[in-house]
């Protein structure tokens, strides 16, 4: 097909792996074989472009050129041919969704930063100019990178607000398309419900479940459980923190800059008023869901 196109468009060229940035004098397309071809802008009419897009995918020059690995991943995700899915990665992997503020930094800059962070090329699948997935192979325990730890330093180097949604590890390609779509789906909604900028799949589950419930029931639950505390932001902040600290009193007191005893006292008060003791797992879980339902 490329050769046929070349006869029509003399400036057509195929992009080779490795050279980083695509020339913006060219309009770029991806073929169904995941090759990237470019045709000089001055050789294209708008009619040509619409015609070409019927069988080629336009390729945004702002994105870093996809590497072989990135093209493979994309192929597997979009392929309906199950044969493709026989390919097995050598290590378990996970998709890590990222998003940063629009129009503040170039995708290429982000890619450089991620490569710096991992000290090697890491496949990145771009959704658009400010969102996408990092595909991370599981590394030895000591080498694995905590997004929670690293997000601040990335933000201070990149000067942009970033969020990460960290998918669960996966060992094979089975249902990869589903995995990919479900992560995309969750990632795009989940950050409305949390103040955190890094969230894992596991942490996101309670959010997702409560959001499935209809609003009336949600409000009813949160009112019934939280009672007069429903608008008491200070107590709610305290409970939130207590859950984030794994029900550890000392840790919570430290984070809240409170004395441990006054924290005890406040939890006792909550217990007296509501009959709920959030130091107990079951009660903690219920209150934690009620807090989510309230949002």
């Amino acid at each position, binding site marked *: 097909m490329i050769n046929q196109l070349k006869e029509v468009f003399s400036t057509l060229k195929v992009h080779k792996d490795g050279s980083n940035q695509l020339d913006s004098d060219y309009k770029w397309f991806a073929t169904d074989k995941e090759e990237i071809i470019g045709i000089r802008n001055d050789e294209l009419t708008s009619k040509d472009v619409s015609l070409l897009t019927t069988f080629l995918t336009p390729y945004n020059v702002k994105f870093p050129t996809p590497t072989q690995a990135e093209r493979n991943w994309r192929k597997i995700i979009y392929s309906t041919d199950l044969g493709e899915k026989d390919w097995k990665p050598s290590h378990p992997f996970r998709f890590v969704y990222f998003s940063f*503020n629009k*129009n*503040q*930094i170039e995708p290429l*800059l982000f890619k*450089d*930063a991620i490569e*710096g*962070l*991992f*000290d090697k090329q890491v496949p990145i699948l771009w959704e658009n100019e400010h969102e996408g997935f990092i595909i991370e192979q599981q590394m030895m325990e000591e*080498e694995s*990178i*905590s997004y929670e*730890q*690293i*997000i*601040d*330093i990335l*933000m*201070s*180097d*990149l*000067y*942009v*607000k970033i969020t990460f949604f960290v998918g669960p590890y996966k060992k094979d390609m089975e249902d990869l398309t589903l995995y990919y779509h479900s992560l995309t789906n969750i990632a795009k909604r989940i950050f*409305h*419900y949390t*103040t955190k900028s890094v969230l894992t799949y596991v942490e996101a589950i309670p959010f997702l479940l409560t959001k499935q419930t209809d609003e009336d029931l949600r409000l009813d639950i949160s009112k019934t459980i939280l009672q007069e505390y429903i608008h008491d*932001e*200070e107590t709610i*902040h305290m409970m939130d*923190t207590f859950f984030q600290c794994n029900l550890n009193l000392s840790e919570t007191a430290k*984070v*809240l*800059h409170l004395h441990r005893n006054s924290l005890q006292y406040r939890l006792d008060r909550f217990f007296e008023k509501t009959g709920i003791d959030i130091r107990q797992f079951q009660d903690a879980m219920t209150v934690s869901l009620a807090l989510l339902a309230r*949002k």
Partner: protein
Amino acid sequence: MAELKLVNVKKVYDNKVVSVEDFNLEIRDKEFLVLVGPSGCGKSTTLRMIAGLEEISSGDLFIGDKRVNDVPPKDRNIAMVFQNYALYPHMDVYNNMAFGLKLRKFKKDEIKKRVDNAAKILGLENLLNRKPKALSGGQRQRVALGRAIVRDAEVFLMDEPLSNLDAKLRVQMRAEIQKLHSRLQTTTIYVTHDQTEAMTMATRLVVMKDGIIQQVGAPKEVYDEPDNVFVGGFIGSPAMNFLNGKLVGNHFVMDDVKLLVPDGRLKVLKERGYDGKDIILGIRPEDINDEQVFLDFSPETKVSASVEVAELMGAEIILYSQVNNQSFVARIDSRFNISAGDTIDLAFDLSKAHFFDKETEQRIK
């Protein structure tokens, strides 16, 4: 050179939480300004709006003369240091400091010049080839500062940079950051929840609560003249005591306990119409004395109190006691053996005390 100005700045998050409101503040060139307040009061939100990491919902932010609400963070000429002093694990100290500049395609020798300079300032010259794993907490924190210094920015924004360090290191790094500031003279906005840190480091401090500025001033000013009950209680340790009572004639009265109010204070209270009204007395633990001279000198502000707990702190004793069923804390020299259960006489130095409106909790002045 950079001054900053925030005018009516407000932040409402997606979930409708109003996190900062009606924020008006001018930050002077070269100033070391500290934002201080309890957890959740909006300190980080304010800082992140200045950085540009959070959008400003309404109001204006100026850096120098320029309104920067819509200027992306990278063009604001700021450098940030966060609480989390994690570094890039695979990079050595040199590259951790250089990375931000490399991303911005700075020339190699310019990068080297800046990193070497920062390393010298921070005493990191011999650690440049170390990986983060091989650094102590204090060293990592210094690298984090170095990462900001190499930016050559007009403004430093620091969000609780020391709160992950242990107490001893924190005190040490506090001093280092102050030294750094007096050397570089970079306008700095520093966030902490720790009032001691705020008091010791700030040129001026901003006390916040529930997203609203409570008071702005030099540490001593805020300490000596708190605008309201919250500020009085938040700044200073042990905290200011608050006692509920009534102004009757010349006395602050708590049922059968009567304390004579000095003339100056009395005049203000009467002029403001508080005679016969409920008011709050605020007095710092160090303004409650047990020395005989004081007791002799001020018989009309003498209270006989029974000691509940006496904590010996070395040079002083912290006494927990009650008057008229209201708890208070006193801080006295540890000359005597005082123990729980003792009854002692204490003189309240009302010339140093403050009075607050019972309803608004504002200081009456």
